[in-house]
């Protein structure tokens, strides 16, 4: 513990603790949505988890000193970069594997029955409707171009405004509006009244 004669050290320690708490709170607030966004892009649970984990670490290491209000767009910018890196790597790996004469089955992950348990349990009918809507929406989202998918999830699920979305995507606000409009159009055409 800091000594009283070192007032500045005490202030520094307490401010570090406060910042850690704020960071923990922030990450707890975004982690599930970030996971869903990464999963929509990567279509692989473990890859999505890795991407979110990397984004968390990088935010903590490089931007923890920034004002907390700036964290959200920064975090999603980092996550987006990570997702793009993983997609590129996957494309290269796919090309290499396609040339190999023997390749093993990569889907050897066994589902964990405890892990599969849902956290909420609505009524069976509602559950079915939601599951149907979810499945349809996820399928339609998966078919969207990457930028449209990204802007739709950041705006609709995460609730970022146009400026924050522009920072997260590394593009202009005008571009955000255009992608969002096109995403909405495409989803409406595909889903109709299902959602």
């Amino acid at each position: 513990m800091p000594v009283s004669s070192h007032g500045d050290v005490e202030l520094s320690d307490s401010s570090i603790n406060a910042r850690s708490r704020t960071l923990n709170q922030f990450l707890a607030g975004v982690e599930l949505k970030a996971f869903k966004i990464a999963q929509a892009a990567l279509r692989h649970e473990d890859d999505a988890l890795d991407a979110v984990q990397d984004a968390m670490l990088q935010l903590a290491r490089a931007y923890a000193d920034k004002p907390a209000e700036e964290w959200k767009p920064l975090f999603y910018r980092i996550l987006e970069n990570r997702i793009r890196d993983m997609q590129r790597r996957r494309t290269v790996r796919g090309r290499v594997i396609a040339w190999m004469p023997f390749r093993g089955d990569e889907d050897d992950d066994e589902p964990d029955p405890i892990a599969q348990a849902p956290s909420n349990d609505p009524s069976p009918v509602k559950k079915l409707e939601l599951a149907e809507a979810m499945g349809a929406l996820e399928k339609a989202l998966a078919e969207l171009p990457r930028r449209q998918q990204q802007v739709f999830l950041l705006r609709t699920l995460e609730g970022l405004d146009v400026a924050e979305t522009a920072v997260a995507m590394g593009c202009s606000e005008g571009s955000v509006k255009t992608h969002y409009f096109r995403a909405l159009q495409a989803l409406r055409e595909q889903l109709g009244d299902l959602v």
Partner: protein
Amino acid sequence: MNPDSEQLTDFERNARRVLEESVLRVDGRVRSRLNQARQAAVEAASTRPHPIFWRVFTLVPTAGAAAAAILVALVMWHGQPQAELPFAENARPTAEDLDLLADGDGLDLVQDGDGSGSFYEWAADQSEAGSGTETDT
């Protein structure tokens, strides 16, 4: 222009509801891994390196010690006995050496021309014998 404050269409509202519901249904394994990742990130933030000014400040004693060592080395280098220098100078032929070599008389003095000992031995004997010997040469 946060979607919360915007006039959302029914489609957007429903889409958000469905997406939020899907977030709530994320399973325990994923939640657990996200929780671990978060703890690691918070830990990394609290133990990350000090800012640049602090690192520079902590380097001052090291830099000072290095500078002092260099200074001592320089002083010792220049403070070596000057007796070493003539040896170094003698390594190269100077104009004086060339004159000596070209001068046959000079060499005779050094080379003991009459076989009775070197000139330097004779000169030493003479100085020990006293000032009167000058007339003998």
